[in-house]
């Protein structure tokens, strides 16, 4: 009977949504914020591994002021696809055994100016 370790893992994308305004305000108020957030992200993979899950990859994005959207195949506009208070600022692709474990990872994921969304990756048979 296979135990948890042998069972196939599933992939989830953890999307980090944060308020860019709050980020900027905090960074302006205290020069330590950037380092604190970087430290949290550096600790994150170890914490994820301790849970029995794994980070496949992760990236931080430039702010939405650098975004360009293309709609309907050719209409190019300045700005993100949807203007929201909390914008996508980065992501981690992870492996977890089930949603509960993925949500544990999501709870650990640094996102002090917002939160994260956990989405299962689609599997094509």
């Amino acid at each position, binding site marked *: *009977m296979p135990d948890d370790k042998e069972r196939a893992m*599933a992939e989830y994308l953890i999307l980090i949504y944060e308020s860019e305004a709050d980020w900027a305000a905090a960074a302006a108020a205290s020069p330590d914020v950037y380092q604190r957030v970087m430290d949290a992200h550096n600790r994150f993979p170890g914490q994820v591994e301790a849970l029995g899950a794994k980070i496949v990859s992760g990236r931080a994005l430039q702010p939405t002021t650098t975004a360009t959207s293309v709609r309907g195949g050719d209409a190019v506009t300045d700005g993100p696809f949807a203007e929201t208070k909390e914008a996508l600022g980065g992501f981690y692709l992870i492996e977890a*055994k*089930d*949603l*509960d474990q993925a*949500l544990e990872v999501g709870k650990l994921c640094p996102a002090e100016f917002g939160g994260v969304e956990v989405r*299962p990756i689609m599997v094509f*048979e």
Partner: protein
Amino acid sequence: MIPPSDDHVANAVADAHRREWAFVLAATARVASDIDLAEECVQDAYVSALEAWKRVGVPDNPGAWLTTAARRKAIDALRRDQTLRAKLPLLVEPVEPVVGGPDEAMNDHNGIPDDRLRLVFTCCHPALAREAQVALTLRLVCGLTTTEIAQAFIVSEPTMAARVTRAKKKISAARIAYRVPDQHELPDRLDAVLTVVHLLYTTGHTAPSGATLIRHDLVERALDLARLLQTLMPDEGEIRGLLALLLLTNARAATRTAPNGRLLLLEEQDRSRWDRNAIAAGVRLVLDALHAGRPGRFTLQAAIAALHAEAPSYAETDWRQLLALYDALLQVWPSPVVALNRAVPVAMVHGPEFALALVDDLAADRRLHGYRYLPATRADLLRRLGRWTEAASAYEQALSLAENDAERAFLAGRIAECASR
């Protein structure tokens, strides 16, 4: 052997549907590894039972018979269809193969693991919206049809079907595990389950809209579920608390409306018609739960209901003790609705003026906007203070928010009473 009559068999199948559905589905889900497939096989098993039991008689243990039949159908389906087997979206531990025929499990549930708790916790997973949790619990744990659930919640059938389908898809696509939560997550996860059962009860008890105040089927299902949880997790104080709360509330159900359908307040109800057996059972459970220590919100609400149920009259109710319980409840459950309900014992202990100030403060809480019991509570306090004009306008406000006919009739009566002063 004389073959059993069709009626007898039909009744036995209906009874097994009510009593055993959750057990059969949960045990089949383990083999099928997919809720949809398990559901289909269980439905087929009930259809087969109707035929088979006419020929061979109703088995001693219908649940075991149905489980064995449903599991065989699931295993056959998985053998036939490799893609089904590759899918395995529901995360369950693989199960020992079913050996032998249905006879083996015919006489008891032995050898078939009781997975009903897994099923309940999966349906009430916090990653599902509350309304989806409720719908799934009724569909999968209670075996209600989508049509029945749609009627109970007064939404269209396609809406309810879509809600159930979406929730099942999420369970499989997001891999919501089919398991009982670990000890450290249990308090939160159990609270979600109890909330769903309580919501079922209150939806049945006070139909949010329409002509009848009580929809008995939902009330009965909620009681069944609470009893089932109590059987499966006998050491959880909050389950005892919830069951007690439902029993105590239900013991007074018959006296909640006048023969003409008007809502009767607690102080107007005929206490001699309360169900004393249910009250005694509820009180015993509350005492047990309180002794278990650190009472949670359901136990404290049950204790409040017990004090009301045991009071010889409204005037002779132990309001000081009630206020103490409300204070404790507000500690473990800082909800504005609890704070509003606390105004009632506050008015009895410290006077309506004092309570009114409290309610007026609460009116500023955004979470209570549109909550019909806020203006209704305010109106009642104003009425008791003899401030008739203000009371009438507060009742008007409550009336504009109430959808249930019995409640509307009550409020309209109060408005007329205020106007005549």
